[in-house]
């Protein structure tokens, strides 16, 4: 991607700040929803090859639970919330107080899936609205989709818009975890802006190609 070659450190810092603001708001929303303390790591902005990307969640073959949604509006992109199946089960149990739910083998409990999708809605909504405020761009989430499957199969979906311009993705990855439990629940937020969106984001923030 031509754009990637022009990318400087301060561009990555801007993207990191986007991850910070967005995921910060999302973590607050999740904390209110669960009534638990949610901690968040400093976001990582990576330029990852398509092959490498699934490795950040355990490898292309790893079974994960994911929410996927498209960002629509002025700077389109893809967004994922990805966690292990066990952690997602725990998260849903917290929410609907039903111990029997499982996501290992379908058919899944409708109530459980719907609760998880609602978490996705709330997280993505708060992430995007803070991002929209920050950049003054109009951004809104599509209806989220849910899947329990191989990380590679899930992530490749978000890579399709990027794949026409290159073999690399710029990923804004924020890890969140709930601290009170003995084994903290953690999940990854991936933001994958479409190729044409970077320029729009940088322009909206007054950052130019040459600084």
């Amino acid at each position, binding site marked *: 991607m031509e754009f990637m070659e022009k990318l400087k450190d301060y561009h990555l810092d801007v993207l990191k700040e986007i991850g910070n603001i967005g995921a910060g708001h999302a973590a607050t929303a999740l904390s209110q929803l669960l009534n638990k303390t949610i901690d968040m790591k400093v976001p990582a902005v990576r330029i990852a090859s*398509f092959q490498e990307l699934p490795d950040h969640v355990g490898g292309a073959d790893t079974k994960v639970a994911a929410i996927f949604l498209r960002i*629509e509006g002025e700077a389109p992109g893809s967004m994922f919330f990805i966690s292990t199946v066990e952690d997602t089960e725990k998260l849903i149990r917290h929410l609907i107080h039903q111990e029997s739910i499982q996501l290992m083998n379908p058919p899944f409990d409708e109530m459980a899936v719907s609760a998880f999708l609602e978490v996705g809605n709330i997280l993505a909504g708060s992430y995007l609205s803070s991002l929209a405020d920050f950049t003054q761009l109009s951004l809104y989430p599509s209806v989220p989709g849910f899947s329990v*499957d*191989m990380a590679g*199969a*899930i992530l*490749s*979906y978000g890579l399709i818009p990027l794949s026409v311009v290159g073999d690399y993705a710029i990923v804004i990855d924020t890890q969140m975890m709930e601290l009170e439990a003995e084994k903290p629940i953690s999940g990854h937020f991936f933001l994958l802006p479409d190729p044409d969106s970077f320029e729009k984001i940088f322009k909206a923030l007054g950052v130019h190609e040459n600084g």
Partner: protein
Amino acid sequence: MGDVIKVGMADLKVVNPPNTIRTSGLGSCVGVVVYDEIRLVAGMAHIMLPSSSLNRQGQTNLAKYADTAIPALLMELEKLGAKTFSLKAKIAGGAQMFSFSTGSSDLMRIGPRNVEAVKATLKDLRIPLISEDVGGKSGRTIEFNPVTKMLHIRTVNQGTKEI
């Protein structure tokens, strides 16, 4: 025991026995296996998109597109001594991982479009398609053994099968 040669996303490779060839986590992507049933060599491509006309990159990664990956695979196979007339194909993948009522429908239909494009290219090149496991909603990890000519398919929710 041979090695398992791994094919990444938008990548293609060829193998000689006793090695086998595998690609992991096929979602809407399609894994195409082309093999020479007499000389027992095989190649696999993990394609992401139906047509290289979608390309906006300066340089085209041939392995990414159905219409360029299969001819590139044939050239690699010929280097290993494969003969065009004894080539056969098996394919898997092209799932729809998420279902949406709204949104960019072209993107969401990418799985079926990839499958159609792969079949059309195989037909153009007169390579018989022996078996397929396409569509559905599940991700697949596939492994091909050029000696047995069987394609092993694993999904997380629906077990394994061989085609």
